[in-house]
């Protein structure tokens, strides 16, 4: 089982966002970090994989099967996409919205197992105390944790997280990344996380995808991609990598 994309071309009007780009097979159980500067096309690539945008050309294959041949409902079920933002002032509790993801939009009855699944997901995510809170009252970081919880409770084959920790404090950033990585490994599912923080990418990802100006520029293990001169070129900074105090890979960027 693997996820592949070939010759993806997406344009909105005259503006081309993805230029004939693609990536080689992403393996199950692995976490891939999609890195690249602002407006490089990360969210567009995610939406294209999720089937929310129809590409002008190109295919996304899951297990060798062209995803565009799947019915929308099936496709949205096997690919779970967590958008970057959600703002809602609905009178719904955190428990309600996670339950909604657990039910996958089907069946009126909520079984005891459903309730336990939601409760333990909230507990594990460390947001059990927010269960009865209204989603409109959450802070940006709390909303993001709820969003991750909603995504992870679903049983999909591919998980796409669009900057799942942009609003989180240090501890929660590490928690969320750790939880996503563990979930992917345990379930044997394919995970892609769009990240701005290259150090988080270096520490948690098994694999990196570098995107710049609508093209996938490099793909491979973090040590290899982060050492590539393309990184410096894409981000327009000088990059040096070094081993951190615990032997982890650290990325240092300089504006020269």
């Amino acid at each position, binding site marked *: 089982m693997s996820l592949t994309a070939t010759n993806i071309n997406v344009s909105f009007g005259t503006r081309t966002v993805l230029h004939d780009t693609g990536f080689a097979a992403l393996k199950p159980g692995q976490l891939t970090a999609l890195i690249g500067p602002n407006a490089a096309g990360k969210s567009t690539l995610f939406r294209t994989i999720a089937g929310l945008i129809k590409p002008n050309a190109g295919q996304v294959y899951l297990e060798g099967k062209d995803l565009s041949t799947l019915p929308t409902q099936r496709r*949205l079920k096997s690919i779970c996409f967590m958008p970057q933002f959600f703002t809602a002032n609905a*009178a719904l509790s955190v428990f*309600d919205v996670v339950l*909604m993801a657990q039910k996958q*939009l089907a069946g009126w009855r909520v079984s005891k197992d459903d309730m336990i699944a*939601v*409760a333990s997901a909230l507990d594990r995510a460390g947001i*059990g105390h927010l269960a009865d809170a209204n989603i409109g009252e959450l802070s940006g970081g709390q909303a993001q944790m709820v969003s991750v919880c909603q995504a992870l409770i679903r049983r999909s084959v591919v998980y796409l997280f669009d900057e799942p920790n942009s609003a989180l404090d240090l501890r929660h950033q590490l928690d969320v990344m750790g939880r996503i990585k563990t979930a992917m490994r345990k379930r044997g599912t394919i995970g892609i996380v769009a990240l701005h923080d290259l150090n988080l990418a270096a520490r948690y990802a098994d694999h990196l995808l570098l995107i710049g100006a609508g093209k996938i520029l490099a793909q491979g293990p973090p040590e290899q991609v982060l050492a590539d001169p393309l990184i410096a070129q894409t981000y327009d900074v000088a990059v040096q990598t070094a081993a951190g105090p615990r032997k982890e890979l650290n990325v240092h960027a300089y504006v020269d």
Partner: protein
Amino acid sequence: MTATTDIPDDAVTTLVGNYRKRTYRRILMLLAAIALLCLTVLIDIMTGPASLSFTDVLSVIFDPSGASAQQKVIVWDLRLPIALMAVLVGAMLGVAGAEMQTILNNPLADPFTLGLSSAASFGAALAIVMQWSLIPGAGAFFVTGNAFALAMITSLALYGFTRLRGVTPEAMILVGIAMLFTFNALLALLQYGASELQLAQIIFWQLGSLARASWGKVLTCVIVLSIVLPYFMSRSWALTALRMGEEKAASLGVNVSFLRLTVLAGVSLLAAVAVSFVGAVAFVGLVGPHIARIIVGEDQRGFLPFSALAGALIMSGTSIASKAITPGVIYPIGMITSLIGIPFFISLILSQRQRHWQ
């Protein structure tokens, strides 16, 4: 992070227990609303010129053989159709308002504020004054048919408008109000050239009245509700998901544009039928869902039935009030709902602004 185990720990049990408690509370509120509705229907039947006692009404309904012919006529032919019509139309408007607010993501949306009611009134006026039928072969139902056709066209126009780039939910309400004024102006134009008899019929539309209720209309409402309501119920999770934003809903597997289109069609059907039978009744579709939102929240499994019940309760209460304010006079219900609705509308706007300030 805690390890996953099959035996739920204390924290999980507490969370499940809390959710259970909230679910039971919701069910209890629904049952209470149903009980209250039964009571208002009975009071509605009791209220009127020939006063009937509580026991009279119960015996005529449940044991007609023992009642006098006069009582039977009053209850079965006059009062009961009106009382049931109030409940059904209220439920239809409540559901229509609830789902409009959901799919347009706008707390101020309802069949009246978005101009559907005035479009329906204009359609009916076209039939009454010009004898034009927009639906060929509508026969005796051509007034209702016209009302429905125009309500439908208006909601399609609104739907088209939501698809335009850069249209905010706030702008939607303005377009709706523009529709309202447009149709009111067109209606005035028709009234200007109408005969006295036609004018009286048009005024019925503008003020709203339950007086023309009949068993046939009650049956039609039941049929429409039993077509639309199960569909809305089956889309409960999708509609709940839509409240998290369009993209979030799509990422959860909701086909957003298809859902919007089908729900809008259902809402138009409900609103158009309701309005074509009782005329333009303001604010029931707005206030009902807001009461439901406050009491049971927006999980559609509770929100949808409670919006229907809240709408039904308001209309049933209005029907009582229309007869009870001045004995012997039946006031138009549209007037009463507006008088109750406007203070609510204003408090809603004020409370919204307060939240943005905080």
